[in-house]
Structure formats: structure tokens, C-alpha cells
């Protein structure tokens, strides 16, 4: 049972990948960039999902995928034109398929008619060229209904209702006489010898054999000579070989397709016993350039063998699909395409735990290296040149090793971005807006954990852009913009960080409204004077929402502060830039990895702490006249005309022996997530160091002001500061954090 659960898990993981790819391909189709390869890829994705779903008995998923793939096959063959309308239907059906996959995964119950509309559209599409895509066609009543539906809603000639009574659809009336355009029947000898792995991957030869039988005249011989005595049988061992004689008109690739999922786990030999000289050579490569003459040239061997029928393409296509099940007919092309698509990335699936273990080991190595370096610091390099060289080299190797290990955890952001087109499509539909989504930098790689947690915040931000940013087409036209709004999502690596930007060309932030709302909600003082940027970033405050009516898209007032929290917990930052009338950009910066951080080692009293380099703006020792006292308690540092509040780390953390006089200490200006600044007063800066991030929460609980811990070269634990937490303490424990006004600082 556990094995089965594991297989299922793998299946769903693959589904997710396939659906992700699918989304990308469909987008390409929609924008007109797709070619036959794209259609092939789409078909293969659906086919793979169907195959897996069949193995696990997800019947509903299989049924829908089957119809879907039939229609895609028709498109791929060039028999169905991928018009904008039909691509839209395909997109919609891909969404439905994704729903079905999710339902199968979670065991959730979808309403019984969830896919019926999409199903109907697909059947109509197939019926428009006289193909019955409905696997239930044998059920006469239903099929007749479908056929009528098909005939009624399309301006093609109605398919004869009578046809529905038979298992296969008849071609259109006037084409009927030309129907029997059969490919030559070829005899094949198929030798099939499964290896152990085939069974271990839960494949079942019986299913394959049944599928083979559908191809045509069929004789199977099993060779059980290798079956050992019963006490020596391995349950998952492969002992039986088969030979099949098959007579089919669908070519070798159709046979090969049956074995598509087990090709690597068996010996497969297909020999044609009566090869037709010309047709056989032409068959596998007969890919029709559909752009030029989509329907006039059919890509099937049938077309090559019967060129006389070219002037009646529908007539020829239809009976073929009628004689064979549309599914297997299509699979023939799939095989050929799969063969051509050989440049695959070689990869193995590795348990994430193993990679993480490796990451940890490298972390330990970094610490050990720091320790050795510290121990040998006092030795003169010229007296121990080998040691110095060796250490320098070790340092290089460790860095390389670390980068390589991190690269193993890195994944392209594509997997998150892939969900966005669907989201935007749905939101555009729900809000009656026209929105185009542009994406760039999908191949930028980030740590897997970051990727996994990026989905929600990204979704929130896109929702926000669609709901609040982009205006309705009317408003846009009135504002002199194109009715179609554009959201651009980009990912880019800058230095040690990943920057993701979500830019819309909408109305921008209405600062007056935001300010009014913030005052209303008591988030800012009524008399507060804020810069434009500060006002814009008010939307990240908890409980802030400007939507006049609460929609189910956004506007519950949770979105943006959750976004900020999520991003912060990943060690990242988010802020917004807005130009009224021209649009807004969410700018997200994320660390490349969660395991290592560049930090500054600080000394405060008897303690040392690590401050992430990313937070630091500058450090200085202020002059007495730069320090200003406000209302007898708060201290402000004036720097280049800006006032920055001072926060004493030793007071915040109650560390004894900290320096109390900022002019004798050091002020580190740090940047906060909301764009604000804070002057952190510390004793001194010890130096910059790369540190390995260790979770405190593994064995303890979160501590405000402390993001994580690390281990320094001396083996001691050092805490990594969290500036947002420090600010929080400073604001909420004023007695501890601010100086009791005894004597003027100056």
C-alpha cells in the first residue's frame, strides 16, 4: 500500500510538472508562437496524465483527458485548425484537467457537471470535422445527443444523427462515398521482453497487450521457458517474453506508442513482415506543415498512400478516425514526434532530504574552515607558505562546493510563473477586464524552498494588480490607454539576490485615498507627513484595504501584509513603486539561498551578533551635533537632512556593558522592509563573514529580534539579527529601548 501511495505521489508530482509545461505551451499557442511541436508537446502532456491516471483508476480524469487528447490529436494532425476560439477552449479544458488532477490528488469531490461544458466544447470541435471524440459513442442515445449538439451549434453541415447509433461517426454526407481510403494493412512481428524494472514501476503487460490487440489482427505467443521453480520466483521479476503477430494499418509508430511508457524497461523489437516500399519510408516523417495548407495535407501514412484523396481531406480523415479509435490514431503521430524530440535534459530524481543533508554538511565544512582559519591566523604566511596556500585553496573549493550544492536545490522560477497565466485569465474574466500577462526571466533559478513559498505571495500580488491596478477597458480608453492592460512579471538575478518585479500599467496607487484610509484605520497619525513612497508602502500594513467593496478576488485586507510576512520569512523584502495613472510595480528581492548569508559581525557589550549585510545601508560614528532628542525620550540621528531614529541594541537585548553614548559607539543605518530606516547603535563592527544559517526554531521557539543562529569559527553560537523584530521591540518597549532622559546627549 505504501508503494502505491508513493507511486501516486510521483504521479501527482509529474502531473504538476506536466500541467506547468502545458500552461507554457498553451500560452505560446494563444500568442500564435506555437507550432506543431508545441501541439505535440501539449498532446504528450495530456496523454501522459491520462496514462498515469488510468493506472490509478482515476476514471473521471481519464475520461476527460481522453476526449481532450482526441481533439488535440486532430489539431496536431492539422485536421482541426487551432483558431483563437479553439485555443481558448483548449485553455479552458486544460484548467478543467488541472482541477480534475487536483481533485484526484486531494480526494475532493467536484460537482458532477464540472467538466461537462468543456467536454461538450471538445466534442463539438471534433464533431465539426466529423470525428466522434466521445468514448461513450456506443451509447446511442447520448451519442445522438452529442451529435445533435454538435450539428446544432456549428455552422458546418450537421453530422447525421443516425451515425451516432454506430460506434464510429460517419463522415459528412457528401464526403461519404469517398470514404474507404485505407492505409495498407501491414504485418508486424513484435518481440516484447519485459525487464524486472517494468514490474517494479507498476506496469502491467496485460494492459499493454490489450491495447495492442486494439490495433488489429492479433496473435500473441508467450514464452514462459524462463519461469523458475515456484520457490525461486521473485514477485517483481520478469520471466515471460511475448511475441505478437499484428496486422494493422496504423504503422509501426502506433505499436511503439503502446509501449511508450515502458520503452526503457523492456526489449522491444518490431519487424515489419511486408514493408510497402514507399509508404513505409515516408510514414514516420510525414509531418504536415499545417500552416500552409492545414487541411489539404494529412500527415498520416494514409495520405501518402492515397494522394488521390487530397482534394477531399475531410472525407479521408473522417473514416480513418472512424475505423480506428481517435486516440490510438493520434498516438501514431505522437510516437514520431517523441522520436524527434531527443534533446532531453538528463537528470535523476533525488530525495530532497539527501540534498539537504549535503547542504548541511557543506555548512559544517564552512564552519570548520572558519575555525581552522581563525586558529592559524597568527601564523605568518611567509613562514608557512604551504599552509597559507592550502587554506586559500580550501576556501576556494568550499565556495565552489557550496555553490554546486546550492545549485542542486535551485530551480527555475518557471514552475511558479507557470501558474500565473491561468490566474490572470481567470481574474480578467471575473473582473471583465482585458489583461495580458508578459513574463520574462522564467529561467532564473532560486532555492527550492523559496520557490515553494513564493506561490502564495505572487498570487496575492497578481490579484492585487488585476483587481486594483488595471482599470476596466472603458476607463482605460477614457484615460487614453489601450483597453488591454498589461502585467509584466520578471525575474532577474542581481548580485546575491533575486529580484522579481510585478509591474502593471494600471491606475497606480491613489495616494490620497490610501492616506485617508490609513488615518481612518488609525494606522498613521492624522497629522503625519509621509513621503510618496511611504504612503505607497502603507498598503503592506496589516488590516489595510482600500477596496470599497470586498470582492472575492482581493480586498479582504489580508493580502498585502501576508505577502510581506511571507517574503520576510524567506529573508526577502518587498516594496511598491507607483506612478499615478501609469501603474505600479511590486519589487520583491529574495535571497538566492536560505542556507548561507553574508553578514556583519557586531560587538555589543559582551556579546556578538550577526547583522545580515542586505540590511545595512551604511555605518558611521556620529558627531554630537547630529544627535537630536525628541520629546525628552527618542533620539534622532540627522544624516544628510534625514532623521533616523536611534535604537540601542544593548538596551533592546539587555546586554550588559554596551556603550551608551552614540558618539563613542557606532551607528549602523539599516533599511527596514517598509522602506524606513533605523540607526542601530552597537559597540563595534568586527568584520564581514559568510555564515551558515541555523534554525533556532528547530529546538526552541522564535525569539523577537533574532532571525536565526549561526556557528562562528570559535565554535560558539552567534545570533543573526532580525531588524524588523528589533524595531518592534523598540516601539513596544519604550522604557527598555529608549534612553531615560537624564542628561542631554550633546
Amino acid at each position, binding site marked *: 500500500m505504501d508503494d502505491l501511495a508513493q507511486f501516486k505521489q510521483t504521479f501527482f508530482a509529474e502531473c504538476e510538472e506536466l500541467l506547468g509545461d502545458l500552461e507554457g505551451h498553451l500560452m505560446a499557442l494563444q500568442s500564435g508562437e506555437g507550432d506543431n511541436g508545441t501541439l505535440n508537446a501539449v498532446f504528450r502532456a495530456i496523454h501522459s496524465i491520462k496514462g498515469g491516471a488510468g493506472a490509478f483508476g482515476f476514471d473521471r480524469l481519464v475520461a476527460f483527458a481522453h476526449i481532450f487528447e482526441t481533439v488535440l490529436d486532430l489539431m496536431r494532425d492539422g485536421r482541426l485548425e487551432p483558431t483563437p476560439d479553439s485555443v481558448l477552449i483548449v485553455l479552458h479544458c486544460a484548467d478543467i484537467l488541472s482541477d480534475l488532477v487536483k481533485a484526484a490528488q486531494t480526494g475532493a469531490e467536484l460537482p458532477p457537471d464540472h467538466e461537462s461544458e468543456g467536454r461538450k466544447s471538445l466534442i463539438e470541435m471534433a464533431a465539426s470535422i466529423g470525428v466522434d471524440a466521445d468514448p461513450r459513442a456506443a451509447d446511442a442515445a447520448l451519442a445522438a445527443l452529442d451529435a445533435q449538439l454538435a450539428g446544432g451549434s456549428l455552422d458546418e453541415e450537421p453530422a447525421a444523427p443516425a451515425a451516432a447509433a454506430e460506434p464510429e461517426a460517419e463522415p459528412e454526407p457528401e464526403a461519404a462515398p469517398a470514404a474507404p481510403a485505407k492505409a495498407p494493412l501491414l504485418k508486424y512481428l513484435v518481440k516484447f521482453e519485459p525487464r524486472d524494472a517494468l514490474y517494479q514501476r507498476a506496469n502491467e503487460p496485460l494492459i499493454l497487450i490489450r491495447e495492442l490487440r486494439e490495433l488489429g489482427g492479433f496473435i500473441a505467443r508467450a514464452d514462459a521457458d524462463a519461469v523458475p521453480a515456484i520457490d525461486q520466483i521473485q514477485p517483481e521479476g520478469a520471466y515471460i517474453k511475448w511475441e505478437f503477430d499484428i496486422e494493422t494499418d496504423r504503422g509501426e509508430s502506433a505499436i511503439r506508442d503502446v509501449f511508450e511508457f515502458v520503452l526503457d524497461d523492456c526489449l522491444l523489437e518490431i519487424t515489419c513482415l511486408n514493408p510497402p516500399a514507399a509508404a513505409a519510408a515516408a510514414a514516420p516523417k510525414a509531418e504536415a506543415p499545417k500552416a500552409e495548407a492545414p487541411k489539404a495535407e494529412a500527415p498520416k501514412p494514409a495520405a501518402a498512400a492515397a494522394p488521390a484523396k487530397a482534394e477531399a481531406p475531410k472525407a479521408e480523415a473522417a473514416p480513418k478516425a472512424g475505423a480506428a479509435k481517435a486516440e490510438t490514431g493520434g498516438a501514431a503521430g505522437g510516437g514520431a514526434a517523441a522520436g524527434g524530440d531527443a534533446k532531453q535534459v538528463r537528470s535523476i530524481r533525488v530525495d530532497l532530504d539527501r540534498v539537504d543533508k549535503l547542504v*548541511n554538511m557543506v*555548512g*559544517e565544512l564552512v*564552519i570548520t574552515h572558519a575555525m581552522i582559519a581563525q586558529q592559524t591566523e597568527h601564523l605568518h604566511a611567509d613562514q608557512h607558505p604551504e599552509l597559507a596556500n592550502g587554506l586559500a585553496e580550501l576556501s576556494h573549493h568550499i565556495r565552489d562546493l557550496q555553490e554546486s550544492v546550492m545549485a542542486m536545490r535551485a530551480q527555475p522560477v518557471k514552475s511558479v510563473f507557470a501558474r500565473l497565466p491561468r490566474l490572470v485569465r481567470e481574474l480578467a474574466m471575473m473582473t471583465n477586464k482585458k489583461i495580458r500577462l508578459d513574463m520574462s526571466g522564467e529561467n532564473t533559478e532560486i532555492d527550492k524552498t523559496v520557490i515553494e513559498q513564493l506561490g502564495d505571495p505572487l498570487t496575492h500580488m497578481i490579484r492585487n494588480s488585476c483587481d486594483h491596478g488595471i482599470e476596466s477597458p472603458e476607463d482605460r480608453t477614457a484615460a487614453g490607454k489601450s483597453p488591454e492592460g498589461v502585467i509584466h512579471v520578471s525575474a532577474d538575478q542581481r548580485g546575491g539576490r533575486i529580484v522579481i518585479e510585478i509591474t502593471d500599467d494600471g491606475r497606480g496607487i491613489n495616494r490620497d485615498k490610501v492616506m485617508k484610509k490609513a488615518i481612518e484605520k488609525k*494606522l498613521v497619525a492624522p497629522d503625519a507627513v509621509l513621503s510618496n513612497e511611504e504612503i505607497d508602502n502603507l498598503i503592506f*500594513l*496589516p488590516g489595510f484595504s482600500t477596496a470599497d467593496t470586498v470582492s472575492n478576488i482581493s480586498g479582504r485586507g489580508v493580502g498585502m*501584509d501576508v505577502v*510581506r*510576512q511571507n517574503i*520576510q*520569512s524567506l529573508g526577502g523584502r518587498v516594496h511598491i513603486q507607483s506612478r499615478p495613472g501609469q501603474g505600479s510595480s511590486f519589487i520583491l528581492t529574495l535571497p538566492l539561498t536560505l542556507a548561507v548569508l553574508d553578514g556583519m559581525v557586531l560587538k555589543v557589550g559582551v*556579546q556578538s551578533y550577526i547583522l545580515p549585510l542586505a540590511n545595512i545601508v551604511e555605518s558611521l560614528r556620529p558627531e554630537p551635533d547630529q544627535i537630536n532628542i525628541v520629546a525628552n525620550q527618542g533620539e534622532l540621528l540627522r544624516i544628510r537632512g534625514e532623521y533616523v531614529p536611534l535604537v540601542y541594541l544593548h538596551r*533592546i*537585548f*539587555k*546586554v550588559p556593558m554596551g556603550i551608551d553614548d552614540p558618539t563613542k559607539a557606532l551607528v549602523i543605518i539599516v533599511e*527596514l522592509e*517598509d522602506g524606513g530606516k533605523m540607526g542601530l547603535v552597537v559597540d563595534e563592527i568586527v568584520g564581514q563573514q559568510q555564515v551558515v544559517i*541555523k*534554525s*533556532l526554531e*528547530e*529546538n*526552541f*521557539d*522564535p*525569539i*523577537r*529580534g*533574532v532571525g536565526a*543562529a549561526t*556557528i562562528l569559527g570559535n*565554535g*560558539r*553560537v*552567534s*545570533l543573526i539579527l*532580525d531588524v*524588523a*523584530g528589533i*524595531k*518592534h*521591540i523598540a*516601539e513596544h518597549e519604550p522604557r527598555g529601548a529608549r534612553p531615560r532622559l537624564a542628561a542631554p546627549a550633546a
Partner: protein
Amino acid sequence: MASEAEQTAHSSRTVQLVSFTVGNEEYGVDIMAVREIRAWSETTPLPNTPEVVRGVINMRGAIVPIFDLRARFGMPRTEPTKYNVVIIVSISARIVGILVDAVSDIITINEDEIRPMPSMEQVSGLGFMEGLITVGERMVGLIGLERMFSDRMLEAADSTGKPMLAGPSDAGGAAA
């Protein structure tokens, strides 16, 4: 499961305890929870945590918090010397260390020798004591680690009085 329950009912199971001293008192914890025993080493203090939290140490790459048992009992913090001992125990999925004065013995007893804690008027908040054992003339208090660390300790660990096991919203420290 059934057989185990039966066994417990007959209560002829033996348990082994690691016993240690805090001041003049002797306590014990289930030996199965003990990962290792090490000499006291300087900890890195955690800011704004109560007395009982001594800080964290590096135990072969893992960050392990150390709790002062003496402080936990309401006495002043231990003034640790190199003779003080830290018992590293695993509780649920966490690894923590408890600072005690010295490890004294390994005691093997039958389960039915464990006496329940009498209800004591003058002592409250001793919910973590699982029972008492008599070894020779000595009384050994059996400490239920799960109980000790699941509620009071963590609750007490935040100086603001809020439970430390707060959700991520609190940990994010988002400024209001």
C-alpha cells in the same frame, strides 16, 4: 497494542532513570530520553528570555537551548562551574539541554514502585513532576520532560508573558 496495555496493567515493567542532583535534591528522568551528558560550556544568551533559559550551544552543528533546572524550580540561577553537567534530552522532536549540578546514578526500578505525587498545598506549578521514587533512604523526584517542556517552560520563555509558541504572524514581527 493490546499486549502492551496488558503489561502496563500488570505493571511489572522496569524503567531506568538517570538521576541527578540540584542542590540537595535528587531527580530522575527516563533514560530513553537522554541523548548525552556533557560538561557545562558557556552558552550564547538569547535576548529577552526568562531566567530559566540559559541560552544556546552548538552541539555538533545543531543549535540546542539549555534550560536551568534550578531556575525552573524557582530558585536563583545556577552559577555554573566546569563541574556542572548538562543533560541533553530529546522531547518530542526537539533536543534540549537541562543544566543540573551533577549526575548521580542510573536507577532501575519497577514501574509500580513509582508513587504518585501527593497534592501539596504549598507547592503549585509542579505539574511536571510525574511521581516519587524511594531509593534506599533517598527520595528521587521523577520529572516528566514532556510535561515540563510542553507547557510552562515555553510559556515562561517570553518575557512579555505571551506564549512563545505563537503563530508565524507574531514571529514575523510585522510592525503595526
